[in-house]
């Protein structure tokens, strides 16, 4: 029987793109202790979906009412199911009307409820949470920042959007500091967040105002990788030893960071619908703290 990794490589040849991320052995070298990894841990993979903006209506995606549903069907059709699915924010498109906001969240929840794999982990984007400080999001999806552990990896969900000024805030930073203090130096840590924690394109507001404080807390840890959304495109960046990977959107792609005056959506291509949209698989390799990223389109071309 074909194993998971071989399958991934084969399927990537057929439309996905594989990107290797991680420390390539540095992590174990840093601790000098291969036995430091729990022998009972096993590699696994999860799916990242992002920026579905449910409720959006406009020329940038005439198929907005169908895109998320198609992505759900695509994930359900994966040959090997993931261990879990994470949504890195902007589940819904913003609205000033609190009733409409809740309607969109309810509809989004119903659609992603069709995903066969559980659990689903959610976090807000600024479109979900900035106008009411996360009130509606919490009603539907629970806390906006939290941690969970899975097969030897410590996952941290950071909220940098409930404050409309894109601050994580001192209270959450204190919480992060306390959480990290309980992790061993060589812990495998993955951070999920919506906005980039570094200044990617400040003129487009692609930053977190106090992201430098979060990075200062994370940098002493040898094995940290960040997955985020917000910028509607695949992007890879490194801050010292910490890698940051932005995911594609499920509504419309945006231009490369700072590449033009305005961050206006790319024009919908009727000849290639859903172009630039997609989700990703992230496969862990715990021994080396590597993450193998495979990008998948919403529909097979």
């Amino acid at each position, binding site marked *: 029987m074909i194993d998971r990794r071989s399958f991934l490589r084969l399927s990537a040849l057929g439309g996905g793109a594989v990107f290797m991320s991680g420390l390539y052995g540095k992590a174990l070298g840093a601790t000098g202790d291969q036995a430091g990894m729990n022998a009972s841990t096993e590699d696994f993979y999860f799916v990242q979906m992002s920026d579905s903006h449910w409720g959006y209506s406009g020329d940038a995606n005439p198929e907005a009412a169908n895109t998320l549903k198609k992505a759900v069907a695509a994930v359900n059709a994966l040959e090997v199911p993931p261990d879990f699915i994470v949504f890195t924010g902007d589940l819904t498109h913003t609205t000033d009307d609190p009733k409409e906001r809740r309607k969109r969240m309810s509809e989004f929840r119903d659609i992603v409820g069709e995903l066969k794999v559980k659990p689903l982990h959610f976090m807000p984007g600024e479109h979900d949470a*900035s*106008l009411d400080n996360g009130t509606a999001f919490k009603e539907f999806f629970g806390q906006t920042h939290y941690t969970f552990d899975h097969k030897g990896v410590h996952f941290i969900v950071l909220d940098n959007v409930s404050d409309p*000024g894109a*601050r994580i805030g001192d209270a959450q930073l204190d919480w992060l500091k306390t959480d990290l203090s309980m992790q061993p130096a060589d812990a495998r840590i993955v951070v999920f967040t919506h906005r980039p924690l570094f*200044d990617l394109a400040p003129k487009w507001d692609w930053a977190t*105002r*106090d992201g430098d404080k979060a990075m200062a807390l994370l940098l002493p840890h040898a094995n940290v990788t960040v997955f985020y959304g917000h910028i509607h495109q695949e992007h890879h960046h490194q801050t010292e030893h910490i890698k940051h990977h932005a995911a594609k959107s499920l509504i419309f792609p945006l231009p490369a960071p700072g590449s033009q005056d*305005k961050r206006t959506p790319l024009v919908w291509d009727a000849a290639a619908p859903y172009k630039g949209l997609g989700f990703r698989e992230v496969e862990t390799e715990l021994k080396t703290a590597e993450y193998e990223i495979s990008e998948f389109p919403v529909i097979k071309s």
Partner: protein
Amino acid sequence: MDKSRRRLFSGAATGLGALLWATAGAATRPTGKKERVIKVQAKKFVYTPNRIVLKQGESVVLEFTALDFMHGFKIPDWNIRADLMPGQVTRVSLKPDNAGEFDFLCDNFCGTGHEEMSGKIIVTA
């Protein structure tokens, strides 16, 4: 990051060629110098004006009035930002050293058109 916030209150944003004070609700700026005052209105999702022309070396005060939200005002190239509280006048003093075009934007998420709420400062030699 929040360096700009610290600079906002210390008035020390001189490193990239601009001076900044932001005082909310005060009738005048503390220095009492004569400077050109430019009134700027901020409302969803536009600054009026959104194109501000200055001369290199000129001291000006931007006087912001926010009508409907605590919009932000940020000039990333100069590491300057301010919160624009509705019902208050927020003053930002500038003295640009270099000619060029500099973007500004609202950096407090304010709704559907937030991504469009931006403008340019044009500094002429």
